[in-house]
């Protein structure tokens, strides 16, 4: 890491952002501990999903035992779509973890930026069915407030009284990472001291999953669903759709220091780009993805050789994994330790970039890289050091988290030790 002006004794600069809180709700479990232990365990959460009956790929990764009434109360259970419910539970955990008391913070200086690809998909489908069966006069007055994607940031603000900038980012499967990068920009620009940032998705509905299946994007390994999500494996045949939420408390370093709160890690870089190539296929040469990785490194003042670990986008689709591997190898070389936590969690679309940012933060914090589940026989075209079978204990000073969205939108985050 190059010497730069403005560094203090811990190596942090005023451009760096402290990650002081994290919260997760994933198919590996509710809460950061359950989710982290789940990805370290390397056992896939994928299973046949009765809600998706009739779809050729009826496999999904759902959050286990998520009871909104118990976790959030009856009113939230009734009036909020699941993508908001998942995020509220993650937000609560992240705020407690960051030791923040919303009664005491400077509300206009607290922002909320959350990524979401789909919004309230289940609400859309339920109310559409209702309209077709009973007519437009029976459509719920809660339809719009429940389904609009921006409502998740609005609800987090209402719950905690955060009155700073408030928005939702939509870059498909990169939405969560884009949100974290955008939040970082709000802090660097001096607009916010704290931003609650991350992503959420709960789109495991018949219509949306049927759409992904018709694209040929999903694994059809229905005879062995637990082996369906297998990033970088030679037998991979598509991704497994998932639901999840992940939120981080990003904080101006000086602000965190003044509060005396510890940081899990520092967010030191963000790079974003567009492929400008195709609606769903990645640029085969990975130009856009490579541009985003380079941008994140430049932004952080890092050299390629500084990177110890990459939490890959690694969806388990034939195209993504080989294209991403080539790009990572071209820029970072073949010694960096790569993993895809999607082997365990499946692909949670707009939440993926956020939950993987949290896993990256934890890898940096604990010097521990989770394995890629189901990696039995690495594709010979994937010429990378992919962590398989069991977690790897190794020094992780700097790590990247890659996220690439349909539409060619790429977002890369760089994380370093606190």
């Amino acid at each position, binding site marked *: 890491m190059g010497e730069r002006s403005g560094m203090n004794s811990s190596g942090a600069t005023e451009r760096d952002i402290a990650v002081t809180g994290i919260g997760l709700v994933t198919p590996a479990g509710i809460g950061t501990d359950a989710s982290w232990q789940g990805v370290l365990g390397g056992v896939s959460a994928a299973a046949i999903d009765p809600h998706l009956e009739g779809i050729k790929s009826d496999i999904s990764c759902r959050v286990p035992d998520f009871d909104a*009434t118990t976790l959030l109360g009856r009113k939230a259970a009734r009036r909020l779509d699941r993508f908001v419910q998942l995020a509220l539970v993650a937000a609560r955990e992240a705020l407690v973890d960051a030791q923040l008391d919303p009664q005491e913070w400077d509300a206009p200086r607290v922002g909320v930026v959350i990524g979401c690809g789909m919004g309230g998909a289940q609400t859309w489908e339920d109310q559409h069915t209702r309209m077709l069966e009973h007519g437009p006069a029976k459509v*719920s007055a809660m339809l719009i*407030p429940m389904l609009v994607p921006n409502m998740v940031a609005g609800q987090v603000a209402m719950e905690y009284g955060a009155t700073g900038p408030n928005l939702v980012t939509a870059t498909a499967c990169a939405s969560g990472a884009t949100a974290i990068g955008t939040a970082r920009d709000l802090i660097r620009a001096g607009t916010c001291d704290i931003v609650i940032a991350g992503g959420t998705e709960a789109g495991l509905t018949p219509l949306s999953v049927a759409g992904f299946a018709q694209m040929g994007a999903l694994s059809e390994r229905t005879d062995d669903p637990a082996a369906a999500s297998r990033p970088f494996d030679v037998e991979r045949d598509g991704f497994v759709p998932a639901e999840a939420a992940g939120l981080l408390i990003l904080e101006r370093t000086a602000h965190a220091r003044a509060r005396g709160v510890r940081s899990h890690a520092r967010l030191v870089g963000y790079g974003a780009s567009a492929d400008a190539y195709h609606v769903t296929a990645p640029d085969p040469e990975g130009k856009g993805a490579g541009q985003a990785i380079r941008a994140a490194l430049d932004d952080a003042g890092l050299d390629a050789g500084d990177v110890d670990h990459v939490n890959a986008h690694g969806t388990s689709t034939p195209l993504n994994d080989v294209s991403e591997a080539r790009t990572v190898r071209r820029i970072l070389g073949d010694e960096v330790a790569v993993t895809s936590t999607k082997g365990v969690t499946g692909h949670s679309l707009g939440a993926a970039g956020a939950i993987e940012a949290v896993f990256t933060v934890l890898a940096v914090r604990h010097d521990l890289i989770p394995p890629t589940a189901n990696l039995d026989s690495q594709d010979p075209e994937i010429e990378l050091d992919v962590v398989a079978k069991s977690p790897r204990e190794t020094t992780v000073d700097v790590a990247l988290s890659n996220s690439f969205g349909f539409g060619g939108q790429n977002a890369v985050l760089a994380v370093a030790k606190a």
Partner: protein
Amino acid sequence: MTVYDKVKEILVEKFGVEEDEVKPEATFEDLDLDSLDLVEFALAAEEELGVRISDEEAEELDTLDDTVKLLEEKGATVEGG
């Protein structure tokens, strides 16, 4: 079953209101129900009691007692009640 019983059933089953909170003098505000909930309540009442409450009437609803009176004036009946 009376119209009041039916209103209580709707509030408990569809709106998640605690049974002991439902009292004739309770207002929708007391039950933490807002204007969007009132539109939903009007839809549920139409389904269960066969009478229509207009949006304007829904906005004016105050206590459960008033609500039951309005429903009864409109000819609401409950099977077996």
